[in-house]
């Protein structure tokens, strides 16, 4: 049986205490544990000494709708709860319902999914294997085995919710040693496989707030090998606003093609540049495909994943725009 290494554990009932403990070297934050526990069992975090659990902190779970129609989802809300709650926008419910498997959604949380560590098939592999390969950059070595020429980690952003939250211009609330701050979801991420979150280690996401989606058409599509369990090897989120047969506002965000959710601005600019048509959709999809360079670091080939970008973007845009094949 594969087991956790011996670790300390703390589950304060006070958020400030969680933040204080996280400031200690070797502390790792746990919400649902569905990402952290496998990574710890694979000995991916050799410095980890103590799990700090968010479970006992009151007020970080649950879903509320504000008067202005914005939806607040507490970080500790499970993905299953989000997927089943009618008050949550359909695109978020759908993306939450596509994460992993039913059991993992029962335990996995919104905050955890937003922070899910970047993944790479040179890293997320059990320990004997990683001892047989020289350690990669993220495992403390000197070389990235995906692209050895450059000292850079290309591990993949593997969250289903992240591209959706970026597309919806959601805001994330962070509580840290220096107080509370609210950042747009897009600014939570850095395109760096080693260090993909633009937050301090001691900062905790407590909630995500989705602004009212009035007039927005939004959707999410996920590519993976199996209909369950698997991480995305491509995610496409889009939020479009239409006026008189023309898209005048668009956010198109790709997941699992880089170390952060990737806004494809070239595609966004194109989509608002002329009246909606099948021809436009095709060109927008092509533009999105040109904007990405997936690496050979997750399931299926990088060439295939790149080719699927226009297919998936095109399909999603057709769904949202009312054009169908």
């Amino acid at each position, binding site marked *: *049986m*594969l*087991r*956790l*290494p*011996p*670790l*300390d*554990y703390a*589950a304060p009932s006070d958020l400030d205490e969680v933040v204080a403990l996280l400031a200690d070297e070797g502390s790792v934050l746990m919400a649902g*544990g*569905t990402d952290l*526990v*496998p990574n710890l*069992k*694979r000995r991916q975090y050799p410095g980890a000494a103590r*799990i700090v*659990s968010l*479970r006992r902190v009151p007020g970080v779970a649950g879903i509320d709708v504000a008067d202005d129609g914005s939806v607040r989802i507490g970080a500790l809300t499970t993905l*299953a709860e989000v997927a089943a709650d009618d008050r949550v926008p359909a695109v978020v419910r759908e993306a939450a319902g596509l994460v*992993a*498997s*039913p*059991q*993992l959604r*029962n*335990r996995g949380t919104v905050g955890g999914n937003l922070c899910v560590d970047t993944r790479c098939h040179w890293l997320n592999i059990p320990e004997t294997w990683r001892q047989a390969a020289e350690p990669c950059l993220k495992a403390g070595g000197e070389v990235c085995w995906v692209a050895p020429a450059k000292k850079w980690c290309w591990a993949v952003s593997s969250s289903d919710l992240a591209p959706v939250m970026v597309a919806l211009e959601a805001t994330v609330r962070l509580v840290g040693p220096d107080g509370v701050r609210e950042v747009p979801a897009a600014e939570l991420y850095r395109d760096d496989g080693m260090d993909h979150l633009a937050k301090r280690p001691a900062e905790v996401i407590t909630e995500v707030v989705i602004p009212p989606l009035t007039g927005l058409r939004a959707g999410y599509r996920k590519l993976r090998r199996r*209909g*369950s*369990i698997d991480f995305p090897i491509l995610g496409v989120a889009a939020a479009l606003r239409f006026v008189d047969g023309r898209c005048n506002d668009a956010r198109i965000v790709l997941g699992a093609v880089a170390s952060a959710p990737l806004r494809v601005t070239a595609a966004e600019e194109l989509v608002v540049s002329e009246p909606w048509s099948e021809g436009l959709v095709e060109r927008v999809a092509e533009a999105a495909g040109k904007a990405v360079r997936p690496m050979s670091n997750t399931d299926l080939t990088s060439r295939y994943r790149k080719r699927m970008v226009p297919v998936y973007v095109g399909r999603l845009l057709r769904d949202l725009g009312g054009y169908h094949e």
Partner: protein
Amino acid sequence: MEPVTLQINGATHRLFVAPHRTLLETLREDLGLTGTKHGCELGECGACTVLVDGTPTLSCLTLTVEASGSEIVTIEGIGTVAHPHPLQRAFAEFGAAQCGYCTPGMILTAKALLDHRARPGSDEIGEAIAGNMCRCTGYLPIIRAIAAAAEELP
């Protein structure tokens, strides 16, 4: 190490557990509840599924200390050979178990479904068990058994 109080199959257990022990390890190795199986210990196969407050949960990813205060139900808690749960009887009758190794986790996942949905369709059953791998049956007899048990349950 702190004492943990666990409610398992209606009984209270108070025990000292190291914090890095998972619920899977505690159930199997400390409490002898070996009906809960394991195939990967990484949350990838579903064999270790137990019910925590009625919800299918992977015991391999759950720290024992985090299960305190919850109602835990394992396969031993829903029926016995002499008095099987309708799902257990249906799994046997429909050949839904071949090697039987995914069966406890599969049955508990199905139980949670049937606790909420009286007569699920086969697509709904499929969605519910999509995190439980079976290597023997091709899942078809499992779907038949769950549908049949649903008919039998009130």
